[in-house]
């Protein structure tokens, strides 16, 4: 139960950061997206993000910072297993499932539906 509460609190706070960046700075949603992935990777590299994942679970892995974290975790794992070549293989191996899922679901949605736009 504690994990659920922490997941809710941490995930929500991360989203608040994103919302504040969009409301208070000239950054666009695309800027915030890239910034979150990069910040997640940096925090993970310094070993700060894994403790957050341990406390908050999906509250820390589902936001975009979690994607940056996975890139770094995968790279470190592959470097430990395969050495130098792991720098190039690790990031996509660790996140490949998510990326392929996005491509596959995106493909089927685009086949099944037409974009409606926002103006009605």
């Amino acid at each position, binding site marked *: 139960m504690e994990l659920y509460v922490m997941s809710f609190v941490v995930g929500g706070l991360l989203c608040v950061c994103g919302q504040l960046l*969009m*409301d208070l700075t*000239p950054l*666009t*949603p*695309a800027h915030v997206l890239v910034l979150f992935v990069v910040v997640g990777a940096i925090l993970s590299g310094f070993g700060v993000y894994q403790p957050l994942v341990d406390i908050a679970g999906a509250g820390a892995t589902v936001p975009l910072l979690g994607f940056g974290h996975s890139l770094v975790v995968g790279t470190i794992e592959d470097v430990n297993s395969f050495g130098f070549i792991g720098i190039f293989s690790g990031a996509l191996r660790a996140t490949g499932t998510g990326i392929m899922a996005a491509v596959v679901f995106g493909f089927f949605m685009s086949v099944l539906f037409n*974009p*409606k*736009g*926002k*103006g*009605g």
Partner: protein
Amino acid sequence: MNKKRGKQSVVFSNPPVITSTANIVGPMEGQGLLDQYFDYTMLDNLNNLDSWEQCESFMMEWAIKEAVNKENSTIDMIDCILAGDLLNQLMSTHFALKKLERPFLGVYGACSTMVESMLLGAMLVDGGFANKVASATSSHHDAAERQYRFPNELGAQRPPSAQWTVTGAGATVLSVFGHGPRITSATIGKIVDYGLKDPNSMGPAMAPAAVDTLWTHFQDTGRVPAYYDMIFTGDLGNVGKQLVIQLMQQKGLDISSNYQDCGCMIYREEQDAHAGASGCASSAIVFCGYIYNMLMNCKLKKVLLLGTGSLHSTTSYQQKESIPCIAHAVAVEM
């Protein structure tokens, strides 16, 4: 006789008559404040076509044909069509005009296109180069959003200063003779750039250009703001409109009582359009509907219409350039 007045203005010696206008809008505009002043409201933003761009072309073609029909002419009697839109290489305009098979000159003035094409059309008619000219413009919310901002499917949040691009098109027919209000004078704007860079806040960027043209118009023609029953700007929105009133006050002219912005007249508060309407069609659908109607019914007799345009491109934005702006004015009198 030379028709030039002052630095940037012209006064027509045979003022062209606006013999008819037509407009067409999307569903959101049709539910807005001016709902009874539209000739046709589409049921959705695709209108059974394959793309938003095709829908925009349809709207422009429809508006030109309808304007011509309304004054009992045929399209063959139009000597020249002046038109433009917001998309790269005037995509919507070129595909719309393809089917009309009339002499055509493309005009790009971003959201000032309606006034720019009316101004040039009036010069063609007054200069004796044409008997009937059609001027038209269009914009489409989703097509413009895709080109200038984000893919619609991304669902990006819009800041409160952002304006909503109008889905619609408007067309006017200018003739040598006929019944209707006349374009008596015009002021050609120059590019004004105060260095603002945020494309989510174009009203404030365009306001100085509107003020520059407004001030020059009064200087050139010797008129005062009170000469006009109403002064309309194209699409400055709530923020830009207040800025124009302030900047004119600093120059010693009070326009607060007879000034309105077309961008503030289209949507209802609860439609969540944020700072108001924008796009080529903002001034076009308001002029070709509400304002023309008021002039024909003599509820307004003298109107000054300013088209305001942000002339940035998607490339210039990515290269962190500022937004060059322009405003053109036409005086329309019954």
